[in-house]
């Protein structure tokens, strides 16, 4: 039984504002975006605002022989033209390593390349002018001469190391890791069935509709730097600006208002953005950089380029004995600061085979440098690869055993009553619900009926396929993710709640909003916890000088970590409110409650005092309160998950596709996802996180790939050539939920933002291969373009 001021979130016992948790409330901040009154970086106007554009290397690897700025410097409107050395005077270089990824190495990186460019698109000079058009015109007047160097483009060549990109590092290996748990050799030796497959995953990028954007405003008079930044992690950036630009932390303020898509792209340190901040200090005026579309393709982080060989051992009864994998991934010439580019491969090692109860697991990972754009963490980091190769090889094993893929999974998924459970890769799971999710999925999609329909249609020459993909997902990370490795990235988040004199509630949170609905769900939690209606709540995020310190938004952590801080602050504020009410009304605190913006009598529900009156007394007439009484109507609470390294979630997806063997086209007919993200705070927002994630995952499975030529030129750096999913080709996506709240927080919420992206590629791949099975063809290289499907069918015909 909880005390009255310790409100259970979903409590039914007390007369409280419990109604908002679990309700599909529209988010308040959508209204300004719908009226064109958002505040994106390029919408901001400052006196003396200058614009910077960058000259970028046309070569994948080249010595910069000569940069002649003489013509550019005299062009109309030009304020400055600088090279890497000039900017390095104002900004120290960085190295993207983490000590807990043992042996991970990288080379120092500067805001602008000095002497040598290491990928096509690396900035080699910056032009600052009064307007962007003037800066772009002047940029064309720079005379740049290069001596091309051998470019390492292929990841196998990088591993072989004939040409070493950073000679000081000795080889092209950024990071490697090998794990061997259980008795893998013995398991394969005694297995009835061994299946093996090689998968490859294309390089993707985030394609945020708003390019990366930053407006840095240095004030020399007080040595302060205010940075309006499209970033997911303002406090992390505050620390980094402070450190590398040598400005005291408290003098750096990072503000993030509206951000036009992020998906992990905007959580990293970018050289051109650091350069913009350095230029503001150098020129003592506000400077803005907004990446254009081509620059976005050339310099936003890429992700996912992996080639993986995976093996699975099973008994003929259908028990999985072991997984064995070998992953090679290429990350560009630098490990990205400060999160490193070793995390994605590391996640593949941690997550492969994760849903299953085998106890033997071996994995080998090599992360290598290449002369392509850098890669780093992008939505679902490593999960799409781990899920696709796990689920691909699981389907192959089921096929070889002649077993239905759903039944094969049922036999091997970790039982729902086995928790807490440690998986073969060493990951600790608090509470997952694989079997409930599988059952719910099969019912939701009417699996049996679909299989029957599939068989009927095959007789008519229609090739439909059904693919499943079970998944585990890292959410609510503890300091084990970055902090333990030395990165100054907060795993903790905070919330400040303040009751205003009129009875309104202001919520300040360190979590940031990029449209997920963070501010909306925090309003729901705060209203619930305090006892006010939603219209009374105003949420403020994205300002290091006003919000509590915290990590921001990444790794599916905002709702689970930031939400718990809001809940705890709300409970504490409610208790403080009741203290004041008891003092005003001269009654025992325990007889009162807060409900519907009023103090009520807990027993009868009778109205006693509006919060607006309580606020008036507390702020303006404290002289009427008892002499020793001090009211506290502002409360801050923090929360860090610590019991588990990660609060794992689970789920399962299914895809139904139809293949046209003559054209190689894949038609997505329907998609399902059943996900367990613990407490669902707002089902409408959660479902749309899943759907949006699924669509991004489908993009990787069917369309998206950054194509590089043999000499390292990005061949499709435009939206016309790099295809992303559009409305007409997307299937209906049906969402279902199982709720297993985490016990590590009172809110019980786990993350959900990456679940869709994690599982969709594997589900679509399995559906395509299921459709192709009667034609004896298989595909294993994403994206599954019509060309690749036709190639697979051609190879099958040639064999047949």
């Amino acid at each position, binding site marked *: 039984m909880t005390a009255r001021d310790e409100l259970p979130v979903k409590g039914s016992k007390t007369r409280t504002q419990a109604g908002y948790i679990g309700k599909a409330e*529209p*988010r308040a901040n*959508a*209204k300004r*975006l*719908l*009226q*064109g*009154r*958002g505040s*994106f970086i*390029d*919408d901001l*106007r400052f006196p003396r605002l200058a614009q910077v554009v960058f000259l970028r290397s046309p070569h994948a690897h080249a010595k910069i022989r000569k940069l002649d700025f003489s013509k550019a410097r005299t062009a109309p409107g030009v304020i400055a033209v600088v090279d890497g050395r000039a900017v390095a005077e104002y900004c120290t270089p960085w190295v993207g390593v983490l000590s807990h990824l043992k042996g991970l190495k990288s080379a120092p990186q500067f805001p602008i390349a000095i002497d040598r460019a290491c990928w096509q698109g690396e900035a080699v000079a910056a032009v600052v002018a009064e307007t962007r*058009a003037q800066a772009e015109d002047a940029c064309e007047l720079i005379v740049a001469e290069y001596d091309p160097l051998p470019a390492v483009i292929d990841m196998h060549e990088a591993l072989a190391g004939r040409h070493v990109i950073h000679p000081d590092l000795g080889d092209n290996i950024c990071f490697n890791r090998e794990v061997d748990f259980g008795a893998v050799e013995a398991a394969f030796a005694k297995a009835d069935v061994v299946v093996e497959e090689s998968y490859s995953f294309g390089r993707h990028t*985030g*394609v*945020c*509709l*708003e390019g990366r954007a930053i407006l840095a405003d240095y004030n020399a008079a007080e040595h302060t730097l205010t940075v309006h930044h499209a970033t997911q992690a303002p406090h992390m950036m505050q620390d980094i600006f402070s450190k590398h630009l040598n400005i005291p932390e408290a003098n750096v303020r990072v503000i993030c208002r*509206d*951000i*036009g*898509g*992020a*998906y992990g792209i905007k959580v990293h340190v970018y050289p051109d953005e650091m350069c913009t901040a350095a230029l503001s200090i150098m020129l003592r005026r506000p400077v803005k950089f907004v990446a*254009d*579309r081509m620059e976005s393709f050339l310099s936003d982080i890429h992700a996912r380029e992996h080639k993986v060989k995976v093996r699975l051992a099973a008994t003929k009864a259908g028990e999985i004995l072991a997984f064995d994998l070998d992953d090679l991934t290429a990350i560009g010439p630098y490990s990205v600061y400060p999160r490193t580019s070793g995390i994605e491969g590391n996640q593949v090692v941690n997550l492969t085979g994760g849903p299953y109860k085998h106890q033997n697991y071996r994995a080998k990972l090599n992360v290598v440098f290449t002369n392509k754009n850098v890669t780093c963490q992008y939505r679902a980091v490593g999960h799409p690869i781990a899920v696709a190769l796990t689920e691909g090889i699981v389907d192959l094993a089921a096929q070889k055993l002649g077993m239905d893929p759903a039944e094969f999974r049922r036999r091997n998924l970790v039982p729902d009553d086995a928790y807490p459970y440690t998986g073969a890769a060493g990951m600790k799971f608090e509470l997952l619900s694989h079997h409930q999710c599988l059952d719910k999925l099969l019912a939701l999609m009417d699996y049996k009926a679909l299989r029957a329909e599939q068989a009927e249609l095959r007789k008519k020459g229609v090739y439909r396929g059904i693919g499943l993909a079970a998944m585990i997902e890292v959410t609510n990370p503890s300091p084990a993710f970055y902090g333990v490795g030395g990165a100054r990235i907060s795993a903790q988040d905070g919330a400040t709640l303040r009751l205003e004199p009129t009875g309104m509630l202001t919520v300040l949170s360190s979590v940031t909003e*990029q*449209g*997920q*609905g963070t501010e909306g769900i925090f309003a729901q939690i705060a209203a619930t916890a305090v006892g006010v209606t939603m219209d009374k709540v105003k949420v403020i995020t994205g300002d290091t000088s006003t919000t509590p310190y915290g990590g921001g938004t990444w790794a599916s952590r905002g709702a689970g970590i930031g939400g718990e801080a809001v809940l705890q602050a709300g409970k504490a504020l409610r208790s403080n409110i009741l203290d004041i009410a008891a003092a005003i009304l001269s009654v025992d605190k325990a007889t009162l409650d807060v409900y519907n913006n009023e103090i009520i009598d807990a027993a009868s529900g009778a109205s006693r005092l509006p919060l607006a009156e309580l606020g008036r007394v507390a702020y303006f007439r404290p002289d009427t309160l008892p002499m020793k009484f001090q009211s506290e109507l502002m409360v801050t609470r923090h929360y860090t998950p610590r019991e588990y390294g990660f609060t794992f979630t689970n789920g399962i997806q299914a895809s139904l596709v139809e293949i046209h063997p003559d054209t190689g086209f894949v038609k997505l007919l329907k998609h399902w996802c059943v996900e367990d993200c613990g407490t669902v705070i707002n089902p*409408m*927002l959660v479902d*749309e996180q*899943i*759907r*949006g994630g*699924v*669509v*991004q995952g489908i993009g990787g499975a069917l369309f998206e790939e950054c194509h590089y030529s043999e000499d390292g030129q990005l061949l499709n750096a*435009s*939206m*016309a050539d790099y295809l*992303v999913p*559009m*409305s*007409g*080709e*997307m299937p*209906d*996506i049906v969402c279902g939920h199982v709720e297993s709240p985490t016990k590590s927080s009172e809110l019980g919420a786990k993350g959900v933002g990456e679940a*869709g992206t994690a599982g969709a590629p594997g589900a679509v791949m399995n559906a395509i291969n299921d459709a192709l099975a009667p034609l004896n063809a298989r595909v294993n290289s994403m994206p599954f373009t019509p060309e690749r499907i036709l190639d697979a069918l051609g190879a099958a015909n040639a064999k047949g």
Partner: protein
Amino acid sequence: MIRLKPGSRHPVALTVNEKACTGTAEPRTLLSDFLRHELKLHGTHVGCEHGVCGACTVMVDGRAVRSCMQLAVECDGASVRTVEGLAQDGALNALQRAFNRHHALQCGFCTAGILMSATHFLSENPNPTEDAVKEMLSGHICRCTGYYPIVAAILDAAGEICAANRITKEKP
């Protein structure tokens, strides 16, 4: 025909959301940049500047056009409608309300363009099918949502607008 000089600025007069607006533009200035930087109407967003993403869509003389594919000077004298003209006195119109209800936007960067395309589309197709909405929406990239709530919102708004029109017609 007036001959324009590169590098020099030329007067451009537009009617934007029923208000007369004037400014100057170089011959190369895009309508999107003119709206944003000269007229300071920031509601129209620029996503790709090559006519693919649809974020910058506005209505010019009743047609939905990508403002990054039009020069400001060629629109001289035109009547332009932008996202800022949809809500009246801060009250969302039926389409905007439906978007809000259905959570048909996340980051909101693509939204202005989609609202303008949908406004044009509904004016010509007051009672559209789901497939027709999806076809129209395929001229826009939304990287956040799964498109589903946008389709639902447009269909919902169509129903509401139709019903409202019926009532208005019946009244006199």
